[in-house]
């Protein structure tokens, strides 16, 4: 009796095994082996910077012909590896980092009312545009911090600051900011107009002690329109497509709005040597 039970099960097992074996061959899904290879070299951040729903989705898209250059957070190494698998060309991508164009901390910028509500910038923006007198500035409630998957943003004295060393360039913070003052900037640039206020000088100054008042002194220090005035004429804007490696615009700014921030990615500031100026004066005197 036991033997017949054992034999029955063995036969059933063999039928099932053969059936599965046939099914595995007949119904096999053709998977491009490159998809797995690409996914293995992607950083697994699943941040969405490439525009796809996670790294495996992007891997699939690349295998189907999408550009190999879209993983900015992975950095040039990742892009090179993906290109190698696909046998594609690598285009040199400049490292971009996010930057908050505002310097209005709680100590420097005035408030127009006491806000007692949801601690989120997008929600606070519904309440008369936020509690800062400057209607354009950073609200400091951390919608960007919540959006950042890499802990690259901190709030210091009511102002958001992005840590360039941690920023992967995924752009999540750019869309989280209701004031649209977070911009993607080439990591090599060190000179920034840390203000986004479009109001005329007197109104801007009343709202914040480090606001841009539109005096244009910084633009005069530029030889090639590296800093220009925006459409309203009230705000100086750095043209990041151009290289600006002098500190003069920052030193002439009467409001201390222009900041020179150097780190491991920025190209060094090269100010004209003071001796040359003295020689010139001597020559003029002679």
């Amino acid at each position, binding site marked *: 009796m036991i033997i017949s039970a054992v034999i029955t099960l063995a036969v059933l097992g063999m039928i099932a095994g053969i059936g599965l074996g046939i099914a595995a061959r007949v119904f096999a899904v053709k998977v491009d082996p490159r998809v797995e290879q690409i996914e293995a070299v992607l950083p697994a951040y699943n941040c969405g910077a490439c525009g796809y729903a996670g790294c495996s989705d992007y891997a699939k898209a690349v295998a189907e012909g999408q550009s190999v250059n879209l993983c900015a957070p992975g950095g040039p190494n990742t892009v090179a590896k993906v290109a190698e698998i696909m046998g594609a060309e690598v285009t040199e991508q400049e490292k971009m980092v996010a930057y908050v164009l505002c310097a209005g901390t709680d100590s420097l910028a005035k408030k127009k009312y006491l806000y007692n509500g*949801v601690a989120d910038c997008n929600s606070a923006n519904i309440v008369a545009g936020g509690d800062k007198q400057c209607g354009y500035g950073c609200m400091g409630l951390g919608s960007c911090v919540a959006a950042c998957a890499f802990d690259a943003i901190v709030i210091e004295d009511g102002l958001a600051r992005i840590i360039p060393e941690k920023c992967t360039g995924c752009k999540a913070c750019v869309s989280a900011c209701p004031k649209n003052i977070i911009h993607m900037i080439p990591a090599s640039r060190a000179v920034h107009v840390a203000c986004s206020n479009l109001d005329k000088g007197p109104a801007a100054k009343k709202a914040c002690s480090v606001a841009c008042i539109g005096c244009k002194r910084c633009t005069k220090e530029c030889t090639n329109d590296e800093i220009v005035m925006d459409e309203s004429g009230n705000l100086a804007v750095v043209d990041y497509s151009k290289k600006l490696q002098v500190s003069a615009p920052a030193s002439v700014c009467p409001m201390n709005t222009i900041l020179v921030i150097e780190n491991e990615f920025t190209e060094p500031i090269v100010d004209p040597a003071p001796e040359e100026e003295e020689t010139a004066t001597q020559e003029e005197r002679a």
Partner: protein
Amino acid sequence: MSKQYKFLGGVHPSYNKHFTRDLATEELPLQSSYVIPLSQNIGAASVPLVDRGDQVLKGQMLAEPGGFVSVPIHAPTSGKIKKIDMYPHPSGRSMMAIEIKPDGEDKWIDGIGPLRDYENMDAEAIKKAIWDAGLVGMGGAAFPTHVKLSPPKEKPIDILILNGAECEPYLTADDRIMVERTKDVVEGAKLMAKVLGVDNIIIGIEENKPESVQKIREVAGPDIRVESLHVVYPQGSEKQLIYALTKREVPTGGLPMDVGIVVQNVGTAAAAFDACAYGKPLIERVMTVTGKGIKEPKNLLVRVGTLISDIVEYCGGMHEDTVKAIMGGPMMGIGQHTLDVSVVKGTSGMVFLTKKESTLYTSEPCIRCASCVDACPMGLLPTVISSYSVNSMFDSCESYNALDCIECGCCAFSCPSHIPLVQNIRRAKAEILASRKKAS
């Protein structure tokens, strides 16, 4: 008898109408400056017709409608146009406005004055008079009246409801209008009914206004139904009022005209009478200045464009511990961060609250008590919508009918954990509408 006139949900805040209920309306004297915003209504802003330096007369058109859903704006007094620039606006942001320096003459433009034969005006003439006078809903929503009175042919109307509920705490402006201008309110209702081509007029008044109920009943006569409503907030909300009076339910995402009804505020009715009977444009309105934070509460007849700072001075000034100045009522009004804003056509009042009355809250987690669900007059689940909103799951908010929220505040008022439900739901509504716009 009033028990039958109610709707589901609602709350009972302390009404505090005793500050001003029995005070007759005073006329605010001519002030030294008027700032008239170009955006005072739902719909397009008005377009200026005047320039800096122009001399204008009282009632003269300063700005023309910026589209069909827009109205003209008129000068509240005679004087010179000082500036057309950005000024603080009650919404909290700065917006374009016309500043007038009065010349003290207060001279009317020609053509306004003697009583016209308004009873024999036809529907088109009445509608034109209402549009030319710049009428908007004076209950606070400020929707252009001529548009409300022009429903499309596919939406036949059979009832006009006049809204005398005034359910917001503190406010007594509509109460005073019904007591002091009873005949004008009723005549205005009849004129608006003529435009719509309806015979059925119902006037709903909350039963905490017995004098108004009695006076309106006397003047309205047997052909107009006057109902005394159960006192509950938000009785004066359009959809709730319609259900309470007629048991008709406005469909989700719909408007009163979908159930054959148009609702108008009693103040708008009185203004419609002024427009037809005298050709008078909408340049002034009754508002209530009240609360423990103001020294002399009053019901005031003020001109559109009057600065709140001037009104505060006339009412004796604020107390030292006044911390909140709300334009409108405390449930749905807008907190102001400066008194340099002006009265607009929809300003029903200013409520001033002291520090003791305005506690700063901290939120606790939701305890799933469903007080908000019980209170919601629209039958929504505020706690669910709010949770999805906080987690940025706005598609789920949409499927829980966030867009049907009337932002009345009953949920936040009832929440024992002090969760800012209305702010979270407002955020969800804004995101849903923004993504719909992007998709189209």
